[in-house]
């Protein structure tokens, strides 16, 4: 925890890339909770997937006189000049999610590792329940390096268990539920032998699963693996869908929490690592109940359990490895 002796910034501005996404909703929730604990005012501006708007939002924050900026880049290259300008104005800045040239620090999960461990778990499951066969349909999102890393990690992880695992269809599902559904329908029509569906986020895995169901196929012999644990959707799926067995939890609340702590440190000029890793872990079957509880339509995070998940010291692979 942050020491009470530290100077607290009065106001933190967070420019999120896409506030309406459940993942970021929960990141923001984590930030707000932490900020409230520390008596900091937190304001959020949404870039709504528009890089220009993101730069404008950060400019507005600087004009408003916030003490620290947190940014989840819409695109990691597109905020390089912004970082330069913030530095010129001595504006402390923390990044979330993606590294940017010239940054001080970033709070992020290890996307590759997240996919990788889910892949390992999937390989084990396939050995036990699917006769060791792994024909994967990846409902991916080439748009973002983070999501590409997850897919890559997943395939690498599954191959550690089943070396002959194949990626039979590599799709761009746009990260959207309806687009994921549509492209998966076509791919499933072409490849009848798919038996594992991997999605880079919950929308993607669920889109793939729904396409499967709409094609009138039984879920026997199918494994669906999702990523994120972003909201309620995956819980619902794990409870009701027989094939939805693995979810790579990324604990967005924890990311938000950690980002605020990092912001305080940067504000105080403390030394911080370049990459502050936020933990992830595969959840298999009913594991999710360890980390979350659901009441009505709100979920609550079980901090003790989440804080018990040890983050990696260093990511196995990062965006830099994609180039």
């Amino acid at each position, binding site marked *: 925890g942050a020491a009470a002796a530290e100077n607290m910034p009065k106001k933190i501005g967070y420019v999120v890339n896409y*506030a*309406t996404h459940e993942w970021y909703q929960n990141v923001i929730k984590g930030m707000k909770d932490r900020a409230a604990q520390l008596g900091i005012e937190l*304001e*959020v*501006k*949404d870039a*709504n*997937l*528009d*890089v*220009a708007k993101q*730069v*404008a*939002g950060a*400019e*507005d924050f*600087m*004009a*408003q*006189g916030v003490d620290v900026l947190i940014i989840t880049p*819409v*695109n*990691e*290259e*597109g*905020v*390089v*000049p*912004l970082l*330069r*300008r913030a530095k010129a104005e001595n504006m402390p800045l923390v990044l979330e999610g993606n590294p940017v*040239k010239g940054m001080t620090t970033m709070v992020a999960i290890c996307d590759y590792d997240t996919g990788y461990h889910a892949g390992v778990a999937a390989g084990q499951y396939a050995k036990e329940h699917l006769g060791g066969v792994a024909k994967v349909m990846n409902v991916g999102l*080439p*748009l973002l*390096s983070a999501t590409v890393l997850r897919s890559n990690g997943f395939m690498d992880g599954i191959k550690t268990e089943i070396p002959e695992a194949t990626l039979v269809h590599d799709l761009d599902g746009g990260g959207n539920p309806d687009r994921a559904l549509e492209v998966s329908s076509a791919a499933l029509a072409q490849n009848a032998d798919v038996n594992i569906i991997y999605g880079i986020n919950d929308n993607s895995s669920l889109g793939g699963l729904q396409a499967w169901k709409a094609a009138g196929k039984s879920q026997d012999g199918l494994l669906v693996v999702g990523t994120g644990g972003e909201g309620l959707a995956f819980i619902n799926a794990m409870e009701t869908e027989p094939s939805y067995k693995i979810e790579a939890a990324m604990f967005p609340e924890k990311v938000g929490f950690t980002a605020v702590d990092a912001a305080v440190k940067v504000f105080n000029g403390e030394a911080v690592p370049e990459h502050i890793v936020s933990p992830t872990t595969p959840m298999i079957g009913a594991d999710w109940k360890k980390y979350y509880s659901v009441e009505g339509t709100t979920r609550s995070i079980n901090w003790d359990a989440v804080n018990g998940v040890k983050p990696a010291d260093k990511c196995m692979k990062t965006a830099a490895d*994609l*180039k």
Partner: protein
Amino acid sequence: MPQSVSSLAAAPAGPSLLRRLARRNEIALLLSLLAVIAFFALASDTFLTTRNLTNVLGQAALPLVAGIGVAIVFISGEVDVSIGSLVAAIAIPLITIMNATESFALGVAGALALGLAVGVVNGYLAAYLGINSLIVTLGTLFILRGGVYLYTGQRAIPDDVMLESFFQLGNGRLFGVVPHPAVIAVILLIAFAYFLRHRPFGRQLYAVGGNPEVARLAGYNVRRVKFVAFVISALLATIAGILLASRLGSAVHVAGLGFEFQVVAAVVLGGVSLSGGVGSLAGMALGVLILQFVSNGLGMLNIATEWQLVITGGIIIAAVAFDELKRRRA
């Protein structure tokens, strides 16, 4: 009642200018803009600071510059929605060439070359082949965006050489106060406003949009006029794209998504008619500024994006409806 010839001949400019002004919706837009500014100035203590106002001008520069082109195409009776992808696409030659040659000028030349090519293609397909321009530019919107994704493999291309001149273009401030993009936008606005009002070709744009048949009978080359409008629009989108690339320090494949909507909404809000022949750059500029100040002001008040969208949508409907009502009264 028509006035007598002699009375008007005596005073050619005075009364007609006043009457023209009174009827113009620019006045209403200006009042709306002032009302918006006044409201936020009262509601937020950080809104009415030089820093914030100049920020907004800098942010408005992109839609302003591209809006000039879109307005010109609208005035000529056509539409151009390809600009959203074009602003992203031109950054590719710009950044790639700068990375390879370390020359800002060569990069800009490359960007302009691509912009020109897109304008020529749009113009040729729409004006010379006669394909509906919404279809053409919707097509190029898709093609360019897809092309950007294909070319970049959906990775942004970073600026490796970091030329200071390039950085300053989008991020620097004149006298440390006015953002360079705002300066460029104002210069372009004045130049094109002059061009539309005082050059025969500018009037041809209005005539061709107002009534192409009449324009043809008056001896205009309607196709060529429209063709040029598309080229102008593409070149202005190119300039906007260069400014954007400088602000982003890279060629970002997702830049400009939905930019065409933003600009079209502002242009129409500014009173530039979709059916051609009507509208002014002043109106367009006011439309852009109103939307930009609303978005900035709501942000200053810490109003959530959800509400910002709802409020902006409501403002657009109210403003256009008000303008229409006023017109019917008149």
